[in-house]
């Protein structure tokens, strides 16, 4: 598949939906509707959407607590997602998982994960299944820059490399792990440099350019489906919001944030669509209106959804 004109607009729409969805989450957090920790991917929509457009619905995926955007881009019903965040019965996990644990096997989503690095070997296992079953499915695992210093990442990279697994290691390098600059925590110029240690193909891409992200991911997916093994993708990106709601951001300057905001894909991508791909301002406005309407419906659904059944609290520990 190469991107058609319609795909581009659809990509923008998904990015916008993610942005509005997450902004709504922040509101809900502040108003007390959402409990726990909330880690928006605001600013990182282009990686989520660019990568997921290159995937099939039946491909496998793991991600992190910052994975709402990826989950939505992969096809998670946003109503179920929002309901989950509000802890409702209609949530994708019946309210038992919450923000950090969206799971939906129907779209291959094998879980966000609250433990840094933990989703990486799990995706390796899914890729092993695909390889064993010769289904030509691939697995993708999203993780942050900080995760590359976790043992599980290392072990998983190596296993994928030696077994030529159909998997894409997608590192969103947003320059910080929580409040810590990644440049202080590794001694290499780019995280993609790590892949050589495993004899794995790697590439660094501009994570604020959804088309570029799509292209490198597509190439990696093609290689994986073709039995040519894993790829490590490092996407340079940035969160325009803090690590989590409540982060006072003493570790970065306002100027740095503003510098990145100028390139915010939510504003630059539609410009690109108009300037380079012949869309009109009206096209963009129409999409924006659609997203707003959808979002109103999403919020309404979530807010009106019932709470989980207290009598079912002990169910789902074990499968029958």
């Amino acid at each position: 598949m190469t991107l058609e004109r319609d795909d581009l607009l659809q990509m923008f729409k998904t990015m916008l939906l993610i942005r509005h969805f997450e902004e709504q989450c922040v509101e809900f957090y502040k108003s007390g509707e959402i409990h726990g920790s909330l880690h928006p991917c605001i600013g990182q929509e282009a990686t989520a959407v660019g990568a997921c457009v290159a995937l099939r619905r039946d491909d496998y995926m793991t991600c992190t607590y910052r994975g709402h955007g990826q989950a939505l881009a992969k096809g998670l019903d946003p109503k179920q997602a929002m309901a989950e965040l509000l802890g409702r019965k209609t949530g994708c996990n019946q309210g038992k998982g919450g923000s950090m644990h969206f799971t939906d096997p129907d779209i291959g989503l094998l879980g966000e994960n609250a433990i840094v690095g933990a989703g990486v070997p799990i995706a390796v296992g899914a890729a092993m299944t695909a390889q064993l079953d010769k289904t030509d499915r691939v697995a993708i695992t999203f993780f942050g820059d900080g995760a590359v210093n976790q043992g599980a990442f290392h072990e998983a990279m190596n296993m994928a490399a030696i077994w030529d697994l159909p998997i894409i290691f997608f590192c969103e390098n947003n320059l910080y792990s929580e409040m810590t600059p990644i440049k202080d925590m590794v001694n290499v110029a780019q995280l993609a440099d790590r892949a050589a240690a495993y004899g794995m193909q790697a590439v660094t891409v501009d994570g604020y350019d959804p088309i570029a992200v799509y292209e490198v991911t597509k190439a990696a997916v093609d290689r994986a489906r073709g039995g040519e093994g894993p790829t490590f993708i490092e996407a340079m990106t940035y969160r325009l919001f803090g690590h989590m709601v409540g982060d006072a951001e003493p570790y970065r300057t306002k100027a740095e944030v503003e510098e990145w905001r100028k390139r915010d894909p939510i504003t630059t991508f539609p410009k690109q669509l108009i300037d380079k791909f012949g869309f009109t301002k009206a096209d963009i406005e129409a999409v924006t209106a659609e997203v707003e309407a959808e979002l109103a419906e999403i919020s309404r659904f979530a807010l009106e959804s019932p709470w989980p059944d207290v009598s079912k609290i002990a169910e789902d520990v074990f499968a029958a």
Partner: protein
Amino acid sequence: MREITFSKALREALIEEMERDPNIILLGEDIGVYGGVFKVTDGLLDRFGPERVRETPISEAGFIGAAVGMAMTGKHPMAELMFMDFAWVAGDQIFNQAAKMRYMSGGRVKVPMVIRTQQGGGRGNAAQHSQSLETVFTHIPGLKVVVPSTPYDAKGLLKTAIRDENPVVFFEDKMMYNLEGPVPDEEYTIPFGVADIKRAGTDVTIVATSSMVHVALGAADLLSEVGISAEVIDPRTMYPLDTPSLVDSAKKTSRAIVVDEGYERYGVTAEIASVMADGAFYYLDAPVKRMGAMDVPVPFSPALEDLTVPTEASVADMAKTLCGKV
């Protein structure tokens, strides 16, 4: 009935189940060409090929994590942890991932996998290769925990473990692989959560697990010499635990000892003793006693190692004290 070793009983279960279900995949270190350091998987590589008997790097977190991913996508992986002590490097994948995945997903996924591992002292393997960590596994919701003590139980319970749709941890005892016992030729399975009375008795109940079942049986012999009739009961699975059978036995004998090879302090003996003390409270003539390993890392020296775990003599002594026969 024919007699076979514990090890062979396990291997038979693996072969029969792998023949039955092509989704069963073994993962682990040196399980292929070498057949596993305790030889349980001997010959399986030749029989099932390298895709189903997958030799892994020394990456326990990695391959147990991969097993979780395989289990979530339709396979039935069996990961071999060469020594239970290595669970500590894979703890996150076992306790935060495998155990919790189904619940966190609200029942959307299942994680049918088995971790086979080997535990216990007695071989001079010292502190990092001799632990019995069943307490840790039973404490965390989401795992089933199996502790067979005979070849018969090993085969029947391993088959049940493999057919279970959840993460099951299966503990073998390193000193028991060569133990022989009757195992029928016919297919059978043993349900989880059903304790087995290994010897019936009337004066004192000895609940014992894994290797300690044999210690308890030896103690029961010693006790019969002094006219004490001991009942030896083996829970066989720590979770699910057959509480009613344990409580009933305590009610019947009115005295009970719980014996396990794990560290005694905050260990499984505490759970079992406390559910028995609660359930049989009005029947007990004496407090329920606990005997586990001493509260020390397992020492290497043969002059010390065996002293850290309950013995036939020490269990018999405890029983005599309880029965007022000292």
